[in-house]
């Protein structure tokens, strides 16, 4: 086993364990904090895959923005610190069976895939990953249209959320 594999196993274990804690934590806020650890673990996995840009963007967007947004949202709920209801409902057996079946299916499909056996080769030095991504974004023959549509999508999300969230009466009174 190489040292990279050991590092990967540690990261994977931490990520999975904190993901389990997200769904089992008894308080909403603690679930959010565990979620942050899970997201950090995903960023570390990106780093071991040498996807540098995605690793830092994972931290920048998911921890720097989305996790904070989730915490703001939690603070708007009532009785933040109280323990909310039982954690399992009646269908948990079915859900567990479906999840286990899905996992078994995934493993069965992936075990026949050749890519599992290939050894990860280090990227050739001098390949500028982020620059190549930028060129792909703006090339009209490749991703120029999705690039612009992403902008429309972001604005649509913002407009929709503001329309729902802003209390018009309060704003007009001020």
């Amino acid at each position, binding site marked *: 086993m190489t*040292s990279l594999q050991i590092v990967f196993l540690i990261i994977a274990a931490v990520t999975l364990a904190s993901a389990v804690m997200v769904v089992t934590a008894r308080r909403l*806020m603690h679930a959010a*904090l565990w979620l*942050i650890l899970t997201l950090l673990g995903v960023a570390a996995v990106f780093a071991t895959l040498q996807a*540098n*840009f995605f*690793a*830092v*963007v994972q*931290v*920048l967007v998911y*921890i*720097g*923005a989305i*996790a*904070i947004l989730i*915490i*703001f949202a939690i*603070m708007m709920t009532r009785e933040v610190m109280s323990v909310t209801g039982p954690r399992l409902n009646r269908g948990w057996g079915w859900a567990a069976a479906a999840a286990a079946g899905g996992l078994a299916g995934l493993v069965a499909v992936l075990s026949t895939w050749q890519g599992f056996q290939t050894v990860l080769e280090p990227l050739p030095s001098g390949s*500028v*990953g*982020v*620059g190549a991504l930028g060129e792909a974004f703006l090339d009209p023959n490749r991703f120029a249209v999705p690039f612009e549509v992403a902008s429309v999508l972001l604005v649509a999300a913002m407009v929709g959320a503001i329309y729902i969230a802003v209390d018009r009466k309060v704003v007009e009174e001020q």
Partner: protein
Amino acid sequence: MDFLKDPVTFLANQLVLWLTGLGLPEGVVRFLSFSIGAAILATSSLLFVIFLIWFERKLIGRVQDRLGPNRLGPFGLFQPFADMLKIFTKEYVTPSGVDPVPYNLAPVLAVSSVMAIWAVIPFANTIYGVDLDVGVVFVLAVGGLAQLGIILAGWGSNNKYALLGGFRALAQLLSYEIPMVITLLIPVMLAGTLSLTGMVTAQDVPFVAVAPLAALIFFIANLAEVSRAPFDLPEADSEIVAGFNIEYSGLKFGFFYVAEFLHGFTSALLFATVFLGGWRGPLAEEIPILGFIYFAIKTSLVYLTILLVDATVPRFRIDQLLNFSWKLLTPLALALLVAMALVDRAMVGMGVESIWIRLPVFLALNAGLFAAGAYFLDRARRRAPRPVVSGGPRPVARPENFTMQPK
């Protein structure tokens, strides 16, 4: 002679040679040398804070017509050591009902997130922790970890004011991160790389001369990110008791303090790297230690500016602070980014490649946008409603207004 020119690389090579000489495999040698390098860099950043505290107290003292620390050692230089000894022996008063893990993790996260920036800053041609190819985004990402520290502190303290202070600090940090990131895009655009080392190498002309308005917006946004006056709301002791760190005491409070000082200086490092050309200067490439000195001088100038601004201006109100970011700095930064990209590409398309011809155009663009920004700021100021003071005359603390008169 090699040692004098570049002591860090010399010592690092000696260390690697010595470790290899012990018969260790290559991977272990690398791990050990990286660990030692990281430990030295991290420790020196922490020890440097002791000097920063002394310097700031001395400077603020002078600005306020005081002497500052002057009893312990020459120029009071030993005062921070005495403070450090004292804070080490202070009791931790942990309020009842705290959420223990977030409460204790917060000060550690606050310091380590700032220290992480030091890992990617190029101090000289050959003196840097690591040349990360996405260094700029890394710096922004660890800023997200600092915000996390503030949330954890506010949340873990079981105190309404700590939570309120934490949330307000967060609203401020979030709001000013946008203009900061957008103005960082301009140097990235000019240099064509996200690596901080590459950015320094690309600065044949320092980027502050190419895009002075971007540098100004970045500087202002950075002041807000490190919560220096006029953006020191996160610890507005006259408004929200003290902010997110009320319930901390002893060294746990001390580390929030350390993080704040270190963050201020680190932002100066970043500004010098991105806009002032880092270690660039005459002969800096041949003699790395000279580059280090240039970098230190540039950084000190930026840090001095931050401190003098901090010492002179009063605090913003929170609505003014948020308006300033969202309604002035963000649109201005976006307009500058678009205008510079379009004009530059149009000029290159017409065959004007030389930076010396493009430079005056860039400067005119910056000046025009600055004038527009100043105009809108002034208009907003004139249109802002005056505070209405209703009711009769208010009691003033004069002797005749006291019910109990002195005999």
